[in-house]
């Protein structure tokens, strides 16, 4: 699938430049990110370490008691490989204390709570360290809505939000992310044995191929069918994008004045920077 092959040299230069400039222009020199042991956060750590002094990159691993112990091991491996600061803040006591009041909560509620618990830790460290929080959601999961709103989707800057998972793999290999991390099955690691692809019901490579044609190239349903995509698969992915669109927007504001934030009060975030 040649069109999803990224020019990794160019991509690396752009993403490293993005972190360097967008962090420094707000008068800050540090970043903080959650390092899960997975490939997305590993790649962001490598980008940040190259953009800023590795001393200025703080990675926090935030395991829950059901997290795979291998995840913390891989997170540590990544931090060592790119020379960044690393700490572990387990979230088990906070999460369990909450669910003592709601023992019947299902996996989705528990997973969301964990993602948001981690978010509060990252933003607390943002204040503690005077560091911006880097996001680690890729374009595939942002489009599918496969993330927790105000949880792992929350950040100040996201270097990888416009590249698909297939491209994350390529860039990670080019930047020297440890092989173990690149080769393992992607997982949200909320419970033992969970894998993204099993939960989603399709592979990342399969869906990236479709997303690239549907979103980037704007192919019609007929054109997708002509390329051999199954109609039901196309419809289900379209529904996922549409139904998760709220996650990619600011909260909706009821308009009553002449200048409503983000509707007719429009400024770039880099206003004055």
């Amino acid at each position: 699938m040649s069109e999803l092959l990224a020019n990794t040299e160019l991509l690396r230069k752009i993403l490293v430049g993005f972190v360097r400039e967008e962090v420094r222009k707000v008068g800050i020199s540090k970043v903080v990110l959650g390092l899960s042991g997975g490939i997305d956060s590993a790649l962001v750590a490598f980008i940040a370490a190259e953009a800023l002094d590795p001393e200025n990159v703080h990675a926090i691993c935030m395991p829950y008691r059901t997290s795979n112990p291998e995840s913390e091991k891989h997170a540590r491996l990544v931090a060592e490989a790119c020379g960044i600061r690393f700490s572990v803040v387990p979230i088990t006591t906070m999460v369990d204390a909450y669910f003592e009041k709601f023992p019947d909560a299902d996996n989705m509620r528990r997973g969301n709570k964990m993602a948001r618990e981690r978010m509060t830790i990252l933003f607390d460290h943002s204040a503690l360290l005077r560091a911006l929080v880097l996001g680690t959601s890729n374009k595939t999961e942002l489009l599918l809505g496969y993330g927790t709103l105000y949880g792992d989707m929350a950040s100040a800057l996201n270097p990888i939000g416009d590249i698909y998972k297939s491209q994350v793999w390529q860039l990670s290999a080019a930047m020297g992310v440890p092989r173990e991390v690149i080769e393992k099955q992607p997982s949200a690691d909320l419970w033992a044995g969970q894998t993204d692809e099993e939960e989603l019901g399709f592979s990342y490579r399969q869906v990236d191929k479709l997303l690239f044609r549907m979103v980037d190239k704007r192919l019609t349903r007929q054109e997708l069918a002509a390329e051999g995509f199954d109609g039901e698969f196309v419809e289900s992915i379209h529904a996922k994008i549409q139904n998760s669109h709220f996650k990619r927007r600011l909260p909706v504001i009821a308009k009553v004045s002449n200048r409503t934030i983000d509707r007719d009060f429009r400024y770039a975030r880099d206003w004055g920077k």
Partner: protein
Amino acid sequence: MDFTVVLAQIKPKLGCVVENLASVEERIAAAREAGADLIVFPELALSGYFLKDLVPDVALRVDSAEIQRLVELSGGISIAIGFVEETDDYHFFNSALYLEDGAIRHLHRKVYLPTYGLFDEQRYLARGEAFRAFDTRFGRFGMLICEDMWHLSASYILAMDGATTLICLSSSPARGIEGDSLGSAAAWQKLVSTTAMFLNCRVLYSNRVGFEDGVNFWGGSEYIAPSGESMVRGLLLEEDSVTARVHEGALRRERIFSPMMRDENLFVTMQELQRIAQERGR
């Protein structure tokens, strides 16, 4: 005449006219010291690009102190620069000035305001309505602002009006990471080279760098000879100052080898365009 041009590949700060003007003045002083005859800045060099509701806040009248300061500086070096222009009737244009010998030689208002994809110019800015060539001490010039150049008619009109040098001031965002080189850079390089070749004109292309809300401007400012050959090109994605020596002889020779502009039939073009306009009912 032969002359030396500097293409100032700068990184304006969004909405910060005072700071941008200071860095522009530094670049002018440095170019002048280095013996340059002309300095070309990018589109919206004094304000930054994704202005949205900041447009009225950063706009300058042509008789403002800021612009008059640049007019004054053009006593020592000719200057082409982009800014948001405010008019007496409170319209705001994406404009470019050509300043020389302490006077305004030309004001171009961007005609083609892109409002698609990541662009939203026509929501905030008024549309210019003319392409006019003008005389400078280096010969007859034409100015285009970024998207203007993607309309063949714009460069064509300037060339037919006698321009032999086209200046394009640009704020072009980087996009397209699939190929050997950056997609938007490759497209532009093809465009400026082809335009120069078709019209037997030089092109001086000045593009900015830096990020605004995650959008990266790619730089790569360049001087294209009338043959279409890129003579010098600035860094990709980084600040730069591109110096080019422009030779009158190269223009003359190219126009002797490839006299397409001499042979261009204005009468046929006008006749057919008028027919098309009539058939469209205008």
